[in-house]
C-alpha cells in the first residue's frame, strides 16, 4: 500500500436511535441520557445523547478495514470529545496521515469527527503500528521511501492546538469561571487559579471534567511572584507549557468616595491587577515566545470609557494602569506571535457586585439599550474568541462588552 503524508480518509455514519439502542445493549450502558429523550431534554440536550465511544467503534472499523486497513494494530488513541452527538446526527469521521515512522513502522494519524453541521465533535490522534510493509512518502517533493528522521526540535517547536493550555486567574467564580469553562470547550486544558475559595475552584474543575474535558485547580496569590512561579512549575510539569493567560482575578470591590480615598486604598487593586499581570507575563511569556503562540487577556471595566460611576475610584485607577500595561505590552510582544488584549464589560451580576444595591443594578440595566446587564457568558465568549488562533491580528484592543457605543 502506498501512502502519502496528508492522505485523508473520511466516512459518514448516521447516529440514529437504533444505533444507540444497540450500543446500549452491547455495552450495558443504559444511562437514560442515551435512552430517554425527555431526560435528555431536561438536562439541556436537544435529543438523546449518543455514547461517545460509538464514534470510536466506527473508528475501529475504519482503521481495521479501510484506512490503513489490513495489517493495522491500533496502539494508542487520544480522544477529545468537543460536543455531544445526539440522536439524529450524522457524523463524519476524517482520518489524516500526519506522520509515519519508518523505523518503528508506526503511523500517527489525526482522527477528527464532525457532525452534519460541520461542527467538530471529536478531536484525536491515533498511533497505529503496521504489521505489514507499507510505503509512505512525506510529500510530493520527497521521493525516497527511506525513512527520513524527524527532527526532534521541529516536533518540540510546535505545540499542537489540542495540547494547548489556558490559565485563568480568579477562575473560581464569575467571569473567570465562565471563561475557564468556555476555553475548555474550545479544546484547551484549563488551569483554574484561585486564592481562597478551593471549593468553588474545584466545582469549576468538576464541571469541566464532567464534559470529558481537562482541568485542574491551583491555589496561588498572583500578587506574589514566587507563588506564580510555583504555579507555572506545576503546569509545565503536567502539560509542558501554557499558551493562554486570562487574568480575571480581583480583590473584593469596595465602594469608597474619591474624596475619602487614600493612596493605600489603591494598593490592593494595584497588587492584583497590575502587579499580578506583570508576574504572569514575566513567568509565562518566555514559553509562549518559544512556540511563537501566546494570548494574554486582561479584565478591564466599562468604567474605562466615558464617565465612571461614583465610589469606584481605587478600582478604576488600577484598571486604567492595567490598560496602560496592555497597550505597552501588546506592541512589544506582537512579533513573537503573542497578542495582549483587554475586555471591558459593564456591570455584570457576579459575586463581585453583590454589594451593589439592587436599585443601582436595575437602573444600569434599564438604561442600557439592550435593557439588561452583562452576563458572564457575554464576556467569556469574547475572551475565548480573542484566545483563538484566528484572532492573531487582534492586538492591543480594549473590547467593550457594553451593548452600547462607548
Amino acid at each position, binding site marked *: 500500500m502506498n501512502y502519502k503524508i496528508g492522505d485523508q480518509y473520511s466516512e459518514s455514519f448516521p447516529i440514529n436511535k437504533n444505533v444507540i439502542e444497540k450500543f446500549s445493549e452491547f455495552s450495558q450502558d443504559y444511562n437514560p441520557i442515551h435512552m430517554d429523550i425527555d431526560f435528555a431534554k431536561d438536562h439541556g440536550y436537544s435529543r438523546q445523547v449518543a455514547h461517545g465511544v460509538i464514534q470510536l467503534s466506527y473508528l475501529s472499523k475504519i482503521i481495521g478495514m479501510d484506512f490503513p486497513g489490513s495489517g493495522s494494530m491500533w496502539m494508542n488513541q487520544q480522544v477529545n470529545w468537543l460536543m455531544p452527538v445526539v440522536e439524529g446526527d450524522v457524523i463524519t469521521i476524517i482520518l489524516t496521515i500526519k506522520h509515519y515512522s519508518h523505523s518503528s513502522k508506526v503511523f500517527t494519524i489525526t482522527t477528527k469527527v464532525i457532525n452534519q453541521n460541520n461542527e467538530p465533535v471529536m478531536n484525536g490522534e491515533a498511533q497505529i503500528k503496521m504489521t505489514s510493509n507499507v510505503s509512505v512518502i512525506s510529500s510530493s517533493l520527497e521521493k525516497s521511501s527511506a525513512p527520513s528522521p524527524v527532527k526532534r526540535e521541529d516536533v518540540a517547536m510546535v505545540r499542537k492546538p489540542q495540547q494547548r493550555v489556558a490559565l485563568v486567574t480568579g477562575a473560581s467564580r464569575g467571569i473567570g469561571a465562565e471563561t475557564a469553562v468556555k476555553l475548555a470547550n474550545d479544546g484547551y486544558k484549563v488551569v483554574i487559579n484561585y486564592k481562597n475559595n478551593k471549593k468553588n475552584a474545584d466545582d469549576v474543575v468538576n464541571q469541566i471534567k464532567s464534559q470529558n474535558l481537562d482541568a485542574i485547580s491551583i491555589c496561588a496569590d498572583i500578587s506574589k511572584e514566587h507563588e506564580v512561579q510555583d504555579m507555572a512549575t506545576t503546569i509545565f510539569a503536567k502539560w509542558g507549557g501554557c499558551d493562554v493567560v486570562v487574568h480575571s482575578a480581583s480583590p473584593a470591590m469596595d465602594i469608597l468616595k474619591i474624596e475619602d480615598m487614600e493612596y493605600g486604598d489603591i494598593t490592593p487593586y494595584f497588587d492584583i491587577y497590575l502587579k499580578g499581570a506583570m508576574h504572569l507575563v514575566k513567568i509565562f511569556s518566555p514559553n509562549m515566545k518559544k512556540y511563537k503562540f501566546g494570548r494574554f487577556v486582561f479584565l478591564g471595566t466599562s468604567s474605562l470609557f466615558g464617565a465612571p460611576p461614583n465610589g469606584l475610584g481605587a478600582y478604576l485607577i488600577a484598571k486604567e494602569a492595567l490598560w496602560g500595561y496592555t497597550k505597552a505590552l501588546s506592541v512589544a510582544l506582537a512579533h513573537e506571535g503573542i497578542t495582549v488584549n483587554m475586555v471591558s464589560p459593564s456591570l455584570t451580576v457576579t459575586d463581585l457586585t453583590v454589594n451593589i444595591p*439592587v*436599585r443601582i443594578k*436595575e*437602573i444600569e440595566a*434599564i*438604561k442600557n439599550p439592550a*435593557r439588561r446587564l452583562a452576563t458572564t457568558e457575554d464576556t467569556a465568549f469574547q475572551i475565548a474568541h480573542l484566545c483563538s488562533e484566528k484572532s492573531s491580528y487582534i492586538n492591543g484592543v480594549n473590547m467593550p462588552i457594553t451593548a452600547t457605543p462607548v
Partner: protein
Amino acid sequence: MTTFNTIKQVMSDVFDIDINDISEDSSPDNIEKWDSLFHIKLIIALEVELDIQLTPEDTMDMLSVKLIKIIIEEKMK
C-alpha cells in the same frame, strides 16, 4: 394588598389600562401612554396611597415597574 399589587392597581387606575397588562417588565418602552405627565400623576398617586415621600432623584430613577417596586420597597422599610 401587597405593595406590588398596590403599585399595579394604582398604575392601572392612573393609566387607564388593564391591571393584567402590567408586569415588572412594564416600562415606557411598552406602555405607550407613559410620558412625563403620566409619570408625575403616577408619582403623586403612589405617594399618597402608600404614605411615602419620594425625592426628585427617586422619581427620575423610576424607569420601569421593577425599579418602582425596588425604590418603594426601600422607602417602606
